[in-house]
């Protein structure tokens, strides 16, 4: 995954609260088994408020969203679709938890800001301001000022380094996993019924 450093660009403003992953990526497109090129299905059915399709053609890599953005279904397609629109950072007062985790796994910054900062960022985005994201310093800046955002320290580190979570776990923790399994085989043998040692594949 590409490491995230700094970003300075225009932003899309989507102030509605509770924008769920069905709105971001309607279920009928879940039949697609690829993760590439999903941007054309992003926000395909957005009807409330008579909005035109969000993000279409703007090319803005920052999204300023409302409360509880990305709630609902765990579909990672929602993140792939937003990423395919070119978005690299999203700011909101809160996020759906699974969506937030999916962002980190796809190189997207999901930063939490206060209500006041969100309001300022929406105004900046609507005015066409450039917004600057500094992940090292955990700040987001526009013409109105520089503001702190919060993001899990582990997510931040992973994004800055562009880590692959899967291969990183295997490279660093294989022995601890094996030790855990050895203990659990004794403590909870019913979870290992019909499984022999040979049936475990160590991905090293």
């Amino acid at each position: 995954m590409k490491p995230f450093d700094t970003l300075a660009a225009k932003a899309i403003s989507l102030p509605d609260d509770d924008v769920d992953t069905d709105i971001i990526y309607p279920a009928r497109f879940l039949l697609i088994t690829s993760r590439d090129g999903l941007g054309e299905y992003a926000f395909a059915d957005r009807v409330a408020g008579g909005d035109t399709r969000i993000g279409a053609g703007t090319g803005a890599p920052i999204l300023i969203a409302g409360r509880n953005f990305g709630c609902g279904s765990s579909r990672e397609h929602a993140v792939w679709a937003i990423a395919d629109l070119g978005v690299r950072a999203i700011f909101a007062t809160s996020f759906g938890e699974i969506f937030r985790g999916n962002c980190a796994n796809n190189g997207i910054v999901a930063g939490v800001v206060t209500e006041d900062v969100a309001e300022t960022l929406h105004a900046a985005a609507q005015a066409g301001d450039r917004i600057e994201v500094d992940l090292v310093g955990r700040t987001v800046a526009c013409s109105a000022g520089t503001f702190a955002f919060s993001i899990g320290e582990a997510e931040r580190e992973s994004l800055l380094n562009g880590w692959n979570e899967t291969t990183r776990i295997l490279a660093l923790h294989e022995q601890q996993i094996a030790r855990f399994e050895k203990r659990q085989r004794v403590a909870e043998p019913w979870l290992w019924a019909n499984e022999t040692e040979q049936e475990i594949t160590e991905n090293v």
Partner: protein
Amino acid sequence: MGEQTPFESPGAATLYERLWTRHVVAGDPNGRALLYIDRHLLHEVSTPQSFELLRANDLSVRRPATNLAVPDHAVPTRNRALPLPPGLARDQVDLLRRNCGEFGIELLDLDDVRQGIVHVISPEQGFTLPGITLVCGDSHTATHGAFGALAFGIGASECGTVMAAQCLWQTRAKTMQVRFDGKLDDNVTTKDLILALIGQIGAAGATGYAIEFTGDAIASASMEARMSLCNMAIEAGSRTGLIAPDDTTFEYLAERPRAPKGKDWDAALAYWKTLKSDAGAHFDKTVVIDASEIAPHVSWGTSPDQVAPIDTALPSPAAGSRDAKAQDYMGLEPGKPLLGTQIDFAFIGSCTNGRIEDLRKAAGIVKGHKVAPHVQAIVVPGSGQVKALAEAEGLDRVFTEAGFEWHSAGCSLCVAMNGDTVPTGKRSASTSNRNFEGRQGPGARTHLASPATVAASAIAGHLADPRKTS
């Protein structure tokens, strides 16, 4: 959380903390834990890209026996004796077959009576057990928390991580106790309890928390009723809804195909009986609701927290507000009573309410009545086994004689990606879990309710109170 100390059991622990501590493989300086994952459920929609992740990194599945796959989201629920018609759904189910074959994962295929919605079949098969960690690329994985399992939904990338490493990095949640005191009224169900809770705390009210449900109304509830409750924890923002296992749990699991047997059962049972929150355990938040005061609930908006007792009137929100936008989408007038709102569709099914007890409840209300002529009503059993059992009990005839369609198992109208849809502008009373814009089809209008309420509404032709029809 920085104060977290993996490998050490705290003095008085909640059930969540106990399950968490038991599965910590490693900690990191940021307060996260690498959690061991005991079981992984797969379906056709959220895993194609997970297997691609394995291939791209040249990885195998570490413990194939801890994975179980079933097609459910995309599959047609009509004409199931026929081969799937050509198209994306067939391609997706075929891909799941190929992936499972290549990586050595067991698949319960479409012609298997054990096929069904992933959150219905796993408990049925005894794949879900107390004390385990269980994940699935599906947000309704909290369902399995009804057994005292630490179960949560994950993304497709994480499904790949779990298959390769049997672990996930996680941040420990805060804890919330939701206590339902008292006894439910007749034809009021745990679906009404969870809708009432979401209405009270909001769609993000439990974000960052793991919920544990306690109280008299839970202790007296069946496993099916408990699953309906835990299933919708995510609609309150929480990935995890837990209930401590008890005799009801153990009776449900005894003799299930994949439950422990013989000496293993005795050892497991001894452990499972320790799985509860200590009397002095600290919850970060507690919510108390008197279950005996809860009326049947129905949603009126496009978020599950836009919900009200069925015998009340719609709110009159300020113009331009979130509630006003939702009422506009739903085609509802502020201040009008919910009762009497005409419906076009009635759907009984889903991982929330597609189990045998749900069908029995609905059939009890439907028996001897007819579906209103303008309503298309369908029943989609949650699994092949639920369907077979219902047919053995004659429930299918109760439904079909009343004018309901009787389908084969799948997610169907809950996610509307298998060809079953509600047309634009049409109104549905639905036992499913999400009333989002377009959830049952572009422009469709969804009212979430219990099987009892949907059955009563199908007969009346409009939203109806199940307490008054039986």
